[in-house]
Structures are given as C-alpha cells and as structure tokens.
C-alpha cells in the first residue's frame, strides 16, 4: 500500500494537514510517538480540561481517525527515498517492531522541544523544563511540586506559572531573565494580545505570584533533589548583579524552543536560521520544503504557537492535494495550483508568523548566562561533560561546536545533543547548526535489522470535497482566539 501522503507528527500542524488531505479523498497515514493525538499543546488526559481550541482539535482528530490511518505510539527514526521516488517512513511500533509506511508525499510536523540553558545544579531531580512541568500537568494531571520557581525567558513561562498555581502549587515567583518591562507593559500587550496578557497578570496576582523581569535562577542546590535555588538580579546582558537564595522543591525553566527538524535534514531539505538563530526547515508559501514531495508545517519551520502551526498544516494539506491532482490530471491541475494557497489562510499565517518573529525579538537569550556556569557545571547531561572539559577542548584548538563535540563528547550520549546542543553552540560562539543525526530516534538493533513492510490491509478512504475546508472570516489573528463555527460540520472551521 502506498499512501498519497504520510504525515509525521500528530500536533495541530500534522492533524490539520492530514485531515485537509484526507477530506479531499487522499489516502493518508499519520504517525505520532504519543499515545494520543494532540502534540505539545493539545495534550490531554482521558478527561479533557479547558484548553482553548481543544474541543475543535478533538473534532479534527476524530474526523481524521475515520478517514486516515492513524498510527499512534510510532516513533519515526528515519525516512528513506525508494528508487521509484516514493518515501519510506521507518518507525518503531509500540511492541518494539519495525514498521515501514510508504508514501508518495511526506509532511513533516514534528514540533519542537524546550530549549534549556545549563546552570550549576540543573541536573538535580526536581529541576524540570518549563514544558516538562506543563506536560506533567496537562497530560498526566500531576503538579510537578509543592513550592515551585519558574524561570527562563519568553511568554510560555506565563501559562506554565498560572497553570501550576491554579492546580494548587505554591509558585514562589516567575523570574523572567529578559525585558525590564513589568507585566503591565508586557510585549504581549504591544502585540495586541491585551486580553491574554491581562488574564495571566490577573491570575498571577490572584495567586500572589511575583513576576520579576531581569531575574533568573542561576543555580540549584540540594543533595539528592533540589532544595533551594539562587535567584539573581541580572543586567541587560544577563550578567549577575545580586543574588538571594529561595527555598523550593521544584524549578521549571525554559528559554524558548528548539524546532525538531531531523527528518527533513536527513532527506536533504534546505534549512535557514530563524529570528532567534534556531535552524529551521526552509518552506515556501505553500509549505513545500526544498526537496520535492516533502512539506513541513508547524514548529519545524519556526516556532510561533499552535495557531500558526495549524494554519501551516492546513496550507500544506491544500498544497499536497493540488500536487496530487496535478500528478493525476495534468492541465486541470494548473488552475488548482493558482488557488493552492488560499488568500485568507496565507494572510492569517503571515500575521501569526510576524507575531512569532516579534516574540523572538522581544525575548532574546543574552550571553551573560555563560557566566552562571562553574568549571564543574555539567553542560552535557548525558555524557556528563563539565564546562572545564569544553574549555580544555577549546584550548586544544577546537574552534567550533563540532570539534568540541569530537574532543570533549558533549552531545554524544542518549539525547544526541538535543539538550546541550544550543549551549555548546553558544559556548563555541556560533549559531546552532542543523542536527546531523542519521537516526532521528534511538531504536533497538533488533528493530533496525528488521525491514518490515506495512500490511496491505491498512486502508483508508472516504472522499470529500476539499473546498469545504475553505474558511472565511476576517484575517485578524485575534479572531482566531474565539472559535467561530462557520460551518458546524466542518471540523477545520474556526
């Protein structure tokens, strides 16, 4: 069985892309490593909570399950090109078997993960990434700790702190390393998101959570677990001006996100550096990468929130449909190609992209964090490489991240540099380079040696009218916040 489209990633981008294509009658398979669709934002337990947009997302996920092959708990570790041009997506199944799904086209919608910065004690249990604390809360209903400190930079700290406080944790403070503006002049306000910023401000005030800019956790202390942290007041460059110790049992720290682009890089897709310096996949107006037959949507093309991810998924889906029609019916396809990127969708996308870029500019990571490290601070958690060893490698002549890696081994362990890659690049004084991982996810040798083919019984179907997906309404990003049922039976309608 060869699918018309194989989608990797079941977050808002992947599901919107897959559903758009499936509703148009394409045979679609979607693989995701999680047990449930939703990705990082629409993470939900059996009992869904009140996440904006969740109900609509669940309708989409439901519609998709009826029309496409959804393979959850499937970790994709590589994609290869067949001699005939088809793409073979290799994944590990829940029972550890190797599975390969063949498709004519591929949509990469693998999202992103937290970008942490190292600091002394950051590997003590009880120190979590901000997203990790959020995932525990949203996906498992577990409050990460009792007395929690939230630290880092970016607007994502706000939902994390308010979520934890509302769930009963004592949030001792949100320490935002950036911006000297108080919440009353938060960048979200400047971006026309007054209601959202106001909501967080109110919630923090209600739970008596202090919000301090130009402050950050610069060290964690404890024997077996974190017992206290050092919070520093910072200058503009994030150099430490003054410190105090705060007793706590948990730290949630995050300095933005790292787009997950391994699969695209494996296939040779072109990359570029995003506003914040992250390597991302290059994509055109129709979300096509530079490699024919391969599209990308959501965070692999740049971080900008779940609404942007969904819009990009829908645009990619339409472009895939147009491509499929073109390949079956020559001339008729030209017309479709012209309307391939519907004006409303692309205008909305461009506005959300601008919003994402503005956020990146409002919350840059400043170099002073390197001064928080001590010689024995682990930079690479997996291979336990302290700062001193990285400095040694540099003294031996390693001038870039790659040669530091070869000499001192940061990024050679289990996580393959996902966690330390950004920090090592900064220490080397260069922007983070695209990952070079021949295998996107660690797999067992057994699975690697198997060459399983998908059974032919994996069928999908149910044609639909792709034009049903056209949404209307004003292209103002803020309109997207309020869900407006243009057509109650259209799962993709806002």
């Amino acid at each position, binding site marked *: 069985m060869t699918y018309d489209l194989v989608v990797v990633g079941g977050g808002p981008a992947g599901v919107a892309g897959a559903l758009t294509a499936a509703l148009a009658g394409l045979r679609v398979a979607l693989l995701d490593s*999680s047990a449930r669709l939703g990705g990082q934002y629409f993470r939900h337990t059996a009992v869904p909570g009140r996440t904006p947009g969740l109900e609509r997302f669940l309708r989409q996920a439901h519609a998709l399950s009826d029309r496409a092959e959804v393979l959850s708990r499937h970790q994709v570790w590589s994609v290869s090109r067949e001699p005939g041009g088809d793409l073979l997506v290799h994944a590990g199944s829940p029972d550890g078997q190797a599975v390969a799904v063949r498709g004519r086209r591929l949509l990469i919608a693998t999202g992103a993960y937290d970008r942490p910065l190292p600091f002394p004690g950051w*590997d003590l249990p009880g120190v979590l*990434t901000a997203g*990790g604390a959020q995932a525990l809360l949203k996906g498992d*209903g577990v409050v990460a700790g009792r007395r929690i400190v939230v630290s880092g930079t970016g607007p994502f700290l706000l939902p994390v702190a308010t979520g934890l406080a509302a769930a009963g944790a004592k949030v001792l403070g949100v320490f935002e390393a950036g911006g000297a503006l108080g919440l009353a002049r938060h960048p979200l306000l400047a971006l026309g998101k007054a209601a959202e910023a106001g909501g967080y401000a109110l919630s923090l005030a209600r739970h008596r959570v202090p919000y301090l800019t130009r402050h950050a956790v610069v060290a964690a202390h404890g024997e077996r677990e974190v017992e206290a942290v050092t919070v520093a007041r910072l200058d503009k460059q994030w150099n430490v001006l003054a410190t105090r110790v705060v007793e706590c049992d948990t730290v949630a720290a995050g300095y933005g996100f790292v787009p997950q682009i391994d699969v695209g890089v494996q296939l040779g897709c072109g990359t570029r550096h995003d506003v914040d310096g992250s390597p991302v996949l290059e994509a055109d107006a129709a979300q096509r990468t530079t490699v024919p037959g391969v599209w990308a949507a959501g965070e692999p093309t740049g971080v900008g929130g779940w609404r942007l991810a969904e819009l990009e998924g829908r645009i990619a889906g339409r472009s895939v449909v147009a491509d499929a029609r073109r390949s079956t019916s020559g001339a008729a396809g030209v017309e479709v190609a012209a309307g391939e990127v519907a004006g409303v969708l692309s205008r909305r996308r461009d506005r959300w992209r601008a919003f994402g870029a503005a956020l990146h500019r409002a919350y840059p990571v400043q170099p002073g964090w390197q001064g928080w490290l001590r010689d024995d601070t682990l930079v690479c958690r997996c291979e336990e490489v302290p700062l001193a060893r990285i400095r040694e490698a540099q003294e031996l002549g390693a001038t870039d991240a790659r040669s530091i890696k070869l000499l001192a081994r940061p990024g050679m*362990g*289990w996580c393959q540099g996902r966690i330390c890659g950004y920090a090592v690049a900064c220490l080397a004084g260069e922007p983070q380079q695209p990952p070079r991982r021949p295998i996107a996810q660690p797999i067992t040798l057994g699975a690697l040696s198997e060459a399983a083919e998908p059974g032919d019984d994996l069928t999908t179907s149910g044609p639909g009218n792709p034009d049903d997906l056209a949404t209307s309404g004003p292209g103002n990003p803020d309109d997207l916040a309020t869900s407006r049922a243009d057509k109650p039976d259209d799962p993709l309608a806002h």
Partner: protein
Amino acid sequence: MTVRPFSITVDGRSVPVVPGQTIGAALHAAGIRAWRTTRFGARPRGLFCGIGVCFDCLVSVNGQAPERACLAEAAPGDEVTTS
C-alpha cells in the same frame, strides 16, 4: 481502557497510577523524583524534559531494555526496575 486507579511495582514498591498516566508521572506524583543514577558521577536523575527528548528518566519495564518513563504509559501489573 481501564478507568479505575491501579498500581505498578517499582523496585518492589507499590506505586499508584491514574489510568493514562506515564510511569514517570506516577513516580513523580508518588514523590519518587530521583530513580536513576548516572554512569560516571552516580548523579541522581528523574524527569527533566517530560516529553522523551532528554533520556534522563530511563527505567526498565517488565525486564525489557531501558525506556523513557515519561513516554511509557503505565499498565496494570507493570514491574519497573530502576538503576
């Protein structure tokens, strides 16, 4: 899907699970936040990224090769061993 809470054993100790929770979440909720030590420095580790990226949370489930506790959904009767 099971709807009632159940338990798993972790190094012989019983840990309660709310259905749908990962092994990592159940451990963390039970106050077990350090369950592994590192190869070189014997440093304690538990959850860090929570989404399968960092590999700090490795456990062995029912005698199988180590897997990420933050991704593995707990099932009734699971026997988890840590290192």
